[in-house]
């Protein structure tokens, strides 16, 4: 492998040109989307005219963040098998989305997750708390993505600083969302998903070509990966062995719970199901997304383990570190142009995810909080809701830029992502499930469930090993405890009071959710 390691071509600015081409394409899309996004359904739900496969690609583009592309590749390249465990959880999570939430949500809601809760519960308190939870998840996740973007850019695009990258990403996401709404966001995500899949397939192909397309040979090469340990000694490990990264099995269980139950509570994923014409299309879009997401995560085998085998952990460590495993592999195997392409893909990945997060945050604030909590479900002026969402997107973008710059490149972003999934799993999922399936469930239960899930996730992370030298809570991810707490909070709150109106309207919700009667239609034209 030595000749491979000697490739150290002078890095040109190819990556910057490719990235600018992507930005130009997305801005053209935004320009054309802006004309179609004038009314509320056009702006918030792309007119509900996105097709199944398009929405599948967009869900995949919304979901596969830089953390999963660069982070998982790096984790596998450094620690082998344990990194691949993440890949599994990210796909299996979609069964919860498919079986439990996608269709009822599409049938009974309009623009946000809270629509389904407010359908039979008292709308103002439920929407206020659901909006708080949505904003918490979206903003924490967004800051994680932006810090990631800032740190990556210094390695991928020489000459561009952390601050410039953060401001650039922030401005672009605000432009997409403010001017192009959900339609522009959707197409940015579709293009990103296609680019990411193209890059991953080609990278996997190049890796397998090195092993003469012999899987046996590929896996054999993984059984003895040599790297330098912290104390300077050489260690050779079988990278297919579990347990090289995670020492406490409970950490794995807790993380698995956060992924499998959290994905179905991520607001930016859920609102994607409002962009399709009906529940049947929502269902097929989940399946399209599962095909794409599954293929992508299976390919992490090739470029994650491939980086370990062909480059070795030591090489990656001296060439940018964990997050650079996939781009460096592309550099060594595919040369300067492919490195530039993969770098541009990494940026497209970040942009598509932050755009999705921005629109979910601003939709929730405008639709749930402004229109329904402050103004009792009545627009004061025509178009006010869209206008408020645009202003919110601007404010959220500015806040995310400032916070990401203040936190700086050294902040531990893993806990922000963990927090987003934990809050989604512990606060959002219990109340969604209960409002769809439990007749007795009521407003008090929804409010206590959301608040207990939200507060317990944040509190447990604050006393976890990520924050304390002598942690009070031993697990990195709080899901193992915070999900049961969220469910218990919702159950206890419900049992404290009775709400005949909510029980009566459960019948209506059940009929709607299961037949699609009265569901929002796609806009004509």
């Amino acid at each position, binding site marked *: 492998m030595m000749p491979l390691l000697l490739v150290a071509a002078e890095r040109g600015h190819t990556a910057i040109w490719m990235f600018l081409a992507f930005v130009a394409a997305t801005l053209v899309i935004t320009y054309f989307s802006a004309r179609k996004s004038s009314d509320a359904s056009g702006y918030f739900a792309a007119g509900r005219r996105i097709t199944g496969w398009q929405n599948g690609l967009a869900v995949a583009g919304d979901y596969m963040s830089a953390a999963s592309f660069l982070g998982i590749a790096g984790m596998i390249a450094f620690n082998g098998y344990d990194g691949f*465990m993440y*890949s599994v959880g990210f796909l299996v999570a979609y069964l919860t989305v498919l079986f439990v939430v996608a269709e009822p949500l599409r049938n009974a809601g309009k623009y946000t997750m809270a629509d389904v809760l407010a359908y039979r519960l008292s709308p103002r308190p439920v929407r206020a708390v659901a909006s708080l939870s949505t904003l918490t998840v979206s903003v924490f996740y967004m800051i994680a993505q932006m810090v990631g973007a800032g740190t990556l850019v210094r390695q991928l695009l020489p000459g561009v600083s952390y601050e410039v990258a953060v401001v650039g990403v922030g401005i672009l996401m605000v432009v997409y969302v403010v001017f192009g709404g959900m339609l522009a966001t959707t197409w940015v995500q579709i293009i990103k998903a296609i680019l990411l899949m193209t890059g991953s397939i080609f990278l996997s192909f190049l890796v397998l070509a090195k092993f003469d397309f012999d899987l046996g040979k590929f896996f054999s090469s993984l059984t003895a990966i040599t790297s330098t340990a912290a104390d300077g000694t050489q260690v050779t490990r079988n990278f297919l062995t579990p347990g090289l990264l995670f020492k406490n099995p409970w950490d794995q*269980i807790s993380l698995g719970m956060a992924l*499998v139950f959290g994905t179905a509570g991520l607001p930016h994923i859920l609102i994607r199901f409002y962009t399709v014409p009906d529940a049947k299309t929502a269902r097929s879009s989940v399946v399209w997304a*599962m095909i794409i997401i*599954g293929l992508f995560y299976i390919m992490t085998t090739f470029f994650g383990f491939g980086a370990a085998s062909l480059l070795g952990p030591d090489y990656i460590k001296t060439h940018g570190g964990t997050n650079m495993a996939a781009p460096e592999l592309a550099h060594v195997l595919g040369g300067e142009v492919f490195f530039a392409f993969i770098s541009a893909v990494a940026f497209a990945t970040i942009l598509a995810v932050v755009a999705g997060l921005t629109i979910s945050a601003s939709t929730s604030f405008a639709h749930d909080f402004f229109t329904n909590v402050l103004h009792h479900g009545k627009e004061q002026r025509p178009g006010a809701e869209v206008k408020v969402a645009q202003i919110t997107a601007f404010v959220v973008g500015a806040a995310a830029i400032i916070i990401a710059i203040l936190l700086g490149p050294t902040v531990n972003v893993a806990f922000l992502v963990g927090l987003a999934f934990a809050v989604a799993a512990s606060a959002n999922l219990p109340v969604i499930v209960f409002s769809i399936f439990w007749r007795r469930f009521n407003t008090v239960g929804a409010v206590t469930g959301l608040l207990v899930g939200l507060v317990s996730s944040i509190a447990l992370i604050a006393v976890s090993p990520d924050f304390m030298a002598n942690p009070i809570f031993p697990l990195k991810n709080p899901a193992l405890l915070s999900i049961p707490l969220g469910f218990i909070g919702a159950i206890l709150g419900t049992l404290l009071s009775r709400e005949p109106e909510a029980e009566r309207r459960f*019948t209506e919700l059940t009929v709607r959710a*299961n*037949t699609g009667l009265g569901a929002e239609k796609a806009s004509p034209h």
Partner: protein
Amino acid sequence: MSFPPSNNSDLTPETASPTDIAPLGQPAQKPRHEQTADEEMAAANWDAIAADPDFISLIKAKAAFIVPATVFFIVYYFALPIGVGWFPKLMETRVLGDMNLAYLFALSQFFMAWILAFLYVAVAAGWDRRASALLEKFHARRGI
């Protein structure tokens, strides 16, 4: 930034009136003459539909697939971290060349998820037909 005027096909009244935002939550009923056929039918018949034997059997059919499928995938998925965490020696057993049980089990999760998803789509097509037949029936009864 510019906000184009609302398009002409949108007949929403212009000032301080319920818009398309309003019907969520627990809104006031629209006056009868403003309701579309669907809304009128829907407002009247939720309870009738819910009580219909065809609807009840549809819900049962859905539960009969979704509940076992959900239990199965949760058990199958968590068997992986449990196996890897507490039975590492077993999971290190080499099965196919150098591929060990741990990797093959992880890989099998992808196929498990895809198979369950495709099964769900196949079964759900039947539910769609039953749901539309049910709605047909209530449309038909509406005039009586």
